[in-house]
């Protein structure tokens, strides 16, 4: 122990006594990550957005998902739906088959479709008809108590109903207001939007899919990627607005046009047009900057005896990457394309369109008598990057996703056993992770909690509103 109490010697402290010892004591990085992120135990840790309260007058995916992000991070979010009906997305189920029941007490034969999944976890669900002046007053009461609101009505609709930011900021100057919708103000203010329209309008669909000379067409993503991506960006804006409010004590309005978002996902496309006047082509499963770096079709399925056509016929694609000169040389050696290596030794030569057509065609000819996994195995053994294009079932069975908790089962408090595949896919947080408490709840499931417990409205009044279909 040092004589002077102000002096601290490293020997006197607990823990490693030297830098070398410290390094020695450190657990392997993987073990360290497993310990601090502690997947599966998220609910034992604090919620990062605890204390934030958010209203959601939203439908479909785009705007609900922007609030779902907040709810997963621990904000208290209330979704306001149409009485008896609920969000239209509840009635949108893939192929009209996958429903969970019940939807609402008055509609025992109707369920909520799985299309509602992922955009509404952890929210509380109330119903309210804004057209009733009495209910608008109740809505104002909620605004006074909440931090913000996300809505998606046609531009100016809530303004018309005296429920827009101009009005609400007078009631609550700290209120953060988000309008999210198709086009926003501008020449197409009347235009509504769907994800596919966003992909088309912003030029994203025009550069997705294979070129027409390869038999391809402009393509939209099967899923509604623009809805999901736009809402993530709304959430980023909301978090920035909350931070801004901490500094200024003032709320703000966020106006979010969905068709803007795909333009952000176009990379260099528009800038290239501005500089050279070049309109970008689509190049589908290959890459415009790197070659070889794309997806090829193999001749045989990995699961020829499977019943499911996705397994039986479609498990034939593999991602192959060998764009470095040495890797390309190895690829050519292993696939017997030596003359192609001689021809396209330099990357600048093989990245050209004509060269790519020649190279990928040769690769597919080589893979024509092989299955997807054989192709990947041969290339991996040669030290090259190759990965099968997986389907949903393979993702479900992937040990990587299971270990990281990306895909997991949730015993939903109301609906039972449900598979989760998105709630835990947004990165891991050590101290305050995201978590899923429930997938969703029936229409109006929290009417009593919100109207009675939060706003102090008598139960008899709530029942009266319910009987009149105000809620």
């Amino acid at each position, binding site marked *: 122990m040092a004589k002077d109490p102000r002096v601290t010697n490293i020997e006197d402290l607990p823990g490693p006594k030297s830098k070398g010892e410290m390094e020695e004591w450190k657990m392997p990085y993987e073990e360290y990550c497993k310990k601090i992120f502690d997947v599966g135990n998220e609910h034992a840790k604090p919620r990062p957005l605890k204390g934030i309260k958010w209203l959601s007058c939203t439908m479909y995916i785009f705007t609900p998902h922007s609030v779902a992000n907040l709810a997963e991070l621990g904000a208290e979010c209330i979704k306001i739906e149409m009485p008896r009906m609920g969000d239209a997305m509840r009635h949108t189920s893939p192929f*009209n088959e996958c*429903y969970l029941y019940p939807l609402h007490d*008055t509609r*025992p034969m109707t369920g909520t479709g799985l299309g509602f999944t992922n955009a509404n976890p952890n929210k509380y669900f109330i119903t309210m008809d804004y057209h009733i002046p009495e209910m608008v007053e109740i809505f104002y009461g909620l605004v006074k108590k909440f931090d913000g609101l996300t809505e998606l009505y046609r531009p100016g609709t809530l303004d018309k109903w005296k429920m827009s930011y101009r009005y609400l900021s007078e009631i609550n100057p700290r209120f953060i207001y988000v309008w999210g919708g198709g086009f926003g103000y501008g020449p197409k203010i009347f235009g509504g939007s769907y994800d596919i329209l966003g992909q088309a309008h912003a030029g994203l669909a025009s550069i997705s899919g294979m070129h027409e000379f390869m038999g391809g067409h402009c393509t939209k993503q099967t899923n509604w990627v623009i809805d999901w991506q736009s809402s993530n960006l709304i959430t980023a804006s909301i978090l920035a607005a909350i931070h801004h409010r901490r500094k200024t004590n003032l709320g703000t309005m966020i106006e979010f046009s969905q068709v803007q978002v795909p333009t952000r996902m176009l990379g260099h496309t528009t800038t290239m047009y501005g500089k050279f006047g070049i309109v970008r082509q689509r190049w589908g499963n290959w890459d415009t900057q790197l070659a070889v770096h794309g997806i090829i079709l193999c001749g045989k399925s990995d699961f020829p005896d499977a019943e499911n056509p996705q397994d039986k016929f479609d498990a034939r694609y593999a991602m192959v990457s060998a764009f470095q000169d040495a890797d390309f040389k190895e690829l050519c050696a292993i696939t017997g394309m030596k003359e192609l290596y001689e021809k396209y030794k330099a990357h600048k030569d093989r990245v050209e369109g004509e060269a790519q057509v020649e190279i990928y065609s040769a690769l597919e000819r080589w893979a024509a008598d092989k299955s997807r996994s054989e192709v990947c195995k041969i290339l991996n053994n040669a030290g090259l990057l190759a990965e099968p294009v997986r389907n949903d079932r393979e993702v479900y*069975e992937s040990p990587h996703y299971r270990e990281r908790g990306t895909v997991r089962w949730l015993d939903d408090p109301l609906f039972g056993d449900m598979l989760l595949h998105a709630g835990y896919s947004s990165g891991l947080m050590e101290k305050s992770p995201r978590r899923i408490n*429930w997938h969703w709840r029936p229409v109006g499931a929290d009417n009593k909690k919100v*109207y009675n417990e939060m706003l102090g409205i008598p139960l008899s009044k709530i029942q009266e509103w319910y009987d009149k279909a105000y809620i």
Partner: protein
Amino acid sequence: MCDIIWCKKEVGGKPCDTINYLDPYCFWNWEGKINCAECGTVYYIHMIQGFMYIGPEERPGEEPDIMPLYADKPFDGYSNYRPGVEGRTRPYECKPRAQLKGVADMVKFSIRGRPVRGWRPQPPSAGLAGSFAFNWDIQKLSPEVWEEYQKKLAAGEVKDW
């Protein structure tokens, strides 16, 4: 997206100024005549892929093929015609389109053999104003499924993954 016809027809010395909303489901690829919900002026339009290729052009004296779904007047306090106003807007019965009227598949158990609420009818909440508690008491609410589940458990058909 939803396009509009903004009717500027002079009626009684001032413009009609009614916005007639063209529901995208009906008008995405469409050619024909549509009336203004307020003044009844008939317009011809030709839309291709949601783009107003021709029109709106007035067609006085002709009958409309279809009515707008909704219309409002922004300069008149947003007074409006909601769906289903006779002779002005189209009826909207809130019914699913015919091709969506299939029979939903029912499930009682997930692929790993645990109960999931995928069948109907389900018992009501018994809560105030449609409110639900946070617990699905399957043993009490659906005893027959609970029994089936116990048999599955005993037979080792319930898995972790």
